[in-house]
């Protein structure tokens, strides 16, 4: 091991039971429960769906090294964003990122936030994929989820796209504006 307080590994089918007991939601908050339920009941299937291999779905689990406690779960995959005129843009969708309740808002002894460690793992993983992913990463965040919005901002997801639903913000990593915008078919 690296001697760090945390360790990250990719998920595997045997993690189903581990994920089924993951707790990250206040039962009174609907959008939190939605995240927890997705992780508990669907995320593993999502990660191994044979029809989705082309999207290179990735499931990441974050553990406390000393105790093997699962403190965070994240997943991402490649998607193609589509404009009404047929234009397409490759991107990575941050499917989910959740910190277990005991670790929400907590830092390791070395000062890193648990959430920053997990988000950094996502960014590292996206950067390391072969074939390479486009560096564009976006996330859908409930507008009341201020903690996740702040996390996204810290990690560079700062630009607002249109909302797919009035309750959900779509936040993407930054782009350097082009002087003249042409309509690319696939980028």
């Amino acid at each position, binding site marked *: 091991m690296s001697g760090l307080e945390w360790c990250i590994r*990719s998920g595997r089918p045997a993690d189903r039971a581990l994920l089924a007991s993951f707790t990250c939601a206040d039962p009174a908050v609907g959008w939190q429960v*939605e995240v927890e339920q997705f992780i508990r009941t669907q995320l593993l299937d999502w990660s191994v769906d044979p029809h989705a291999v082309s999207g290179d779905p990735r499931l990441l689990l974050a553990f406390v090294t000393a105790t093997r406690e699962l403190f965070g779960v994240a997943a991402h995959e490649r998607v193609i964003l589509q404009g*009404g005129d047929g234009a397409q*843009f490759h991107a990575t969708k941050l*499917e989910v990122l959740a910190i277990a309740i005991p670790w929400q808002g907590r830092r390791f002894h070395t000062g890193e936030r648990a959430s920053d460690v997990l988000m950094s793992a996502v960014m*590292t993983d996206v950067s390391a994929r072969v074939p390479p992913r486009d560096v564009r990463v976006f996330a859908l965040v409930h507008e009341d989820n201020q903690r996740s919005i702040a996390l996204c901002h810290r*990690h560079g997801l700062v630009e607002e796209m*249109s909302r797919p639903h009035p309750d959900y913000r779509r936040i993407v990593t930054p*782009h350097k504006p082009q002087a003249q915008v042409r309509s690319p078919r696939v980028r």
Partner: protein
Amino acid sequence: MVGDMTIATWPVVGRRSVVHAYKPGESSAAEGPFRTLRVHAWASSGVRVTRRAGGRLVGQMTIFSSLNVESARLARNGNPDAAERVAHAAAQLEAGPEFVWLQRILSDLPGHDAKRVVDGVLPDDAPAALAEALKAVARRTEQLRAGELILATLAEVIAGRIAEVHEGYVLLVRVSGPAAMVPRWMAVAAGRDKVGELLALVMDKLDDASAVVEAVPAIDVDGDVGAGVFSPFGRGDMRVRNLTQEDQRLLAGEPQPLRILVPVLIEA
């Protein structure tokens, strides 16, 4: 994109909508036109809904199956037999279990909420059963409508989900077919002017060169209601991946390198 769904016009209406379909240019509050429709059996009697405030009875309102709008149009277009058939179907629907269910839920709503529901608005604190009852009525409406072939050509309906909202218009994306631009003021009048909401544009032909165009609220008969159920997870909802023109302009820029705050090693 709106995926697999059937989007239909809102299944319940007030009397004014029925009168408006019969006499588009006249006051929709007038008594005469509705009386004419009723005398000729071109409209059903509707269903009475009790309205309450603070637990007390404050009045009643009458709601109608939206099939009455169609029967009124048929009557206006000089097709009294079809108008009577459709009005009869509306009366059957209003006497059926779906409408009774809806009537009971509306009666339990406080204040003016029942009126808002007829206008296409679901109150924030409305019971989940209300949406289900509306969908049940909408499904039954579509079944009855499908049995009357003349309705397919009576008025053209463009129904879909609002994908973009601009200063002067909203972009309506249909289940299939090209998107349509709808003046924003019409979408506002229909109570549907936000991304994700369901809206229908009804083009009611007056003669070969003119039509009455009306924006009305819509409903997903199969699934969600109004703005729609949305999950940020999974791969099924195209709204997650659809881009507006403004999004495209943003993404056309050069993506900047990812920011990694904490060095992390990922085990296999």
